[in-house]
């Protein structure tokens, strides 16, 4: 579906995309994850044909991005970043407008149903909330029954409920065997929705693979959190030689191998040890980002 080799995009002195490679197969949800300014949008806008590359090779659906533009446009669907449709057309009229630009198209009512906007069919776009506007955007991106759909930060600025509604729609696209390229700066979103993830920072991919693979490779394993642990608990863990960190009265104990958990439980059962509760936390993409860049995602956006 997508093959990218050594893609570079330069603006005068600034290198926005610094030599990325990407392979996306049919039917998968592929997320490009990273802070604002990492180069995600520039990369996908080159793949969508909205920006010209400085160098490298980009093939979309078997066509060269520059020579095959006409053919590519017929078969892709795009939800651009900060999407807007025509303010004074209704939801239905907006979908009809974009549908009219393609030869192959899905019936408007079917799309309205797919994004559950039946009640808002005749509302002007300008009067919709942010979440509903994004749903219109997804419907419009699907209007030509595309093989490949780009969703550029579809949930940025949405409240948690609206964000989950967009997730549901993305899951539905996946179940219809559509290929979806998703950019996001929400780690959780990438982790929950994607088959493959590329973590991007400062114009480069710093980790690629399935969320599981990335976490296994770059994550620091599971951590057992002992909440409200007393000093005796910390002493016991330290003298047993286990790796741990103390944080706000909690002990964060690294689970280095299969034996770590039974060993910790043994230590915690000693009579002088007290604690409130114990829970096990796996590594997340957020942890991976922190480990690879030395920054939290939110800090990287500063």
């Amino acid at each position, binding site marked *: 579906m997508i093959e990218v080799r050594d893609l570079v995009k330069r603006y005068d002195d600034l290198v926005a995309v610094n030599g990325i490679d990407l392979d996306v197969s049919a039917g998968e949800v592929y997320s490009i994850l990273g802070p604002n300014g990492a180069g995600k949008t520039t990369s996908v*806008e080159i793949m*969508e*044909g*909205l*920006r*010209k590359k400085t160098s490298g090779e980009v093939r979309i659906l078997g066509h060269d991005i520059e020579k095959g533009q*006409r053919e590519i*446009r*017929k078969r*892709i669907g*795009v939800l*651009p*970043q*900060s*999407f*807007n*449709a*025509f*303010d*004074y*057309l209704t939801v239905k*009229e907006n979908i009809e*407008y*974009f549908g*009219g*630009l*393609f030869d192959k198209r899905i019936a408007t009512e079917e799309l309205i149903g797919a994004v559950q906007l039946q009640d808002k069919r005749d509302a*002007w776009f300008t009067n919709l909330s942010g979440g509903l506007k994004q749903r219109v955007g997804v419907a*419009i991106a699907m209007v030509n029954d595309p093989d490949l759909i780009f969703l550029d930060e579809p949930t940025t600025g949405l409240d948690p409920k609206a964000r989950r509604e967009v997730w549901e729609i993305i899951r539905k696209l996946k179940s219809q065997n559509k290929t979806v390229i998703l950019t996001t700066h929400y780690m959780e979103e990438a982790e929950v929705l994607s088959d493959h993830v590329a973590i991007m920072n400062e114009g480069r991919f710093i980790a690629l693979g399935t969320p599981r693979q990335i976490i296994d490779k770059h994550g620091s394993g599971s951590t057992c959190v002992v909440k409200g642990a007393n000093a005796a608990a910390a002493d016991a863990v330290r003298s047993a030689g286990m790796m741990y960190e103390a944080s706000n009265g909690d002990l964060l104990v690294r689970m280095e191998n299969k034996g770590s958990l039974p060993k910790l439980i043994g230590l915690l059962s000693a009579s002088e040890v007290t604690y409130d509760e114990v829970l096990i936390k796996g590594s997340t993409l957020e942890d991976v980002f922190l480990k690879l860049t030395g920054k939290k995602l939110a800090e990287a956006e500063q």
Partner: protein
Amino acid sequence: MRPKHVMVDLKGQARSFFRIKSNLFWVFAFPLLLIIIFGAIFSNMGSEAVTLNVQNLDEGTGSQQLLTALNGTGMVKLKFISPATNLDQHIKDNSLAHVMVIPANYSSNLASNVTAPVELRLDETVSTSGTVFNAVNGVVNAINLQMAGGEQHIVIEMGSIVQKRFSFLDFFVPGIIGLTIMTTCVFNVQGTISRFRTNGIFRKLATTPMTPFEWLLSRILWHLFISFLTMAVIMGFGMLIFGMNMSVNLPVVLMIVAGSAMFSALGMIVARFVKNEETASMAANAITFPMMFLSGTFFQLEMMPSYLQQVAAVLPLTYMSQGLRDAMVYDNQAGAYFNLAVVAVIGVIFVIVAVLITKWEEE
């Protein structure tokens, strides 16, 4: 070029255009307001007789003959002041501008062939004083000639420059049509492009099979329709309310087509060079505002100083307004086609430039 894409965008514009209230104002209310205001000011200009206040101290037939003749000119309306009134005080109290006093011995002087003076007091700061003087002077001359038993050897035959009888409104309305088409096309097209660039609609359109050329063509066609609508509204209103005379003929139709395309393209060019939404609107104002006043919309170009006339000569609206006036009012085919040719050439250049420079993709 796919006509289907142009039709899709035209349909979208047709659906949304009049949902935007400011569009209703600029297309309908703005020109009508101008016509109502200027129509009310100028509709009676020149046709109403000037009031001449007369204090007749004479009781003979001579003064009656003079007053009857003055009445017959239709240029003045006589209003009598009682012979007993203190004239100076009366003029002051009523701010009179034109007063004629016929002395007590007027008729007897005439009868005895003694020069009979008639006193005319005029306020020279009032523009109608000339009219009063001409009326009285004309009548007095005629009476003198008649009494001398003379014969008229030279007579003036009155004719008008224009074939039909025209009012200021007839001059004004073609200018208002040109002006409204300019403001509607420039501001709408510039505003739409700036807005679509800012809110990302262009980025979305760039990922569809529609081309910028198809989009621009659709915008030009739509504004052409709006221009004809504007013209119909203005003419209909002017004819119904103010009884204007004007005709729609081939050069008028062609001028609307060329002018509308020219100003739509101008809006595209402004939007391309000035990317910030607010600055672009200021730039559009900076271009249209001087044209509003310097292109002969509100008054004849001949009334302006010569350096301003030279400025007017490079403004496209000058040619559009003058061409519309030639075709609609003066029935001057040669003038209409000359102005049309100027507008068409500028229009073609503007459209080509607009098509070449309008891009959806950002760099």
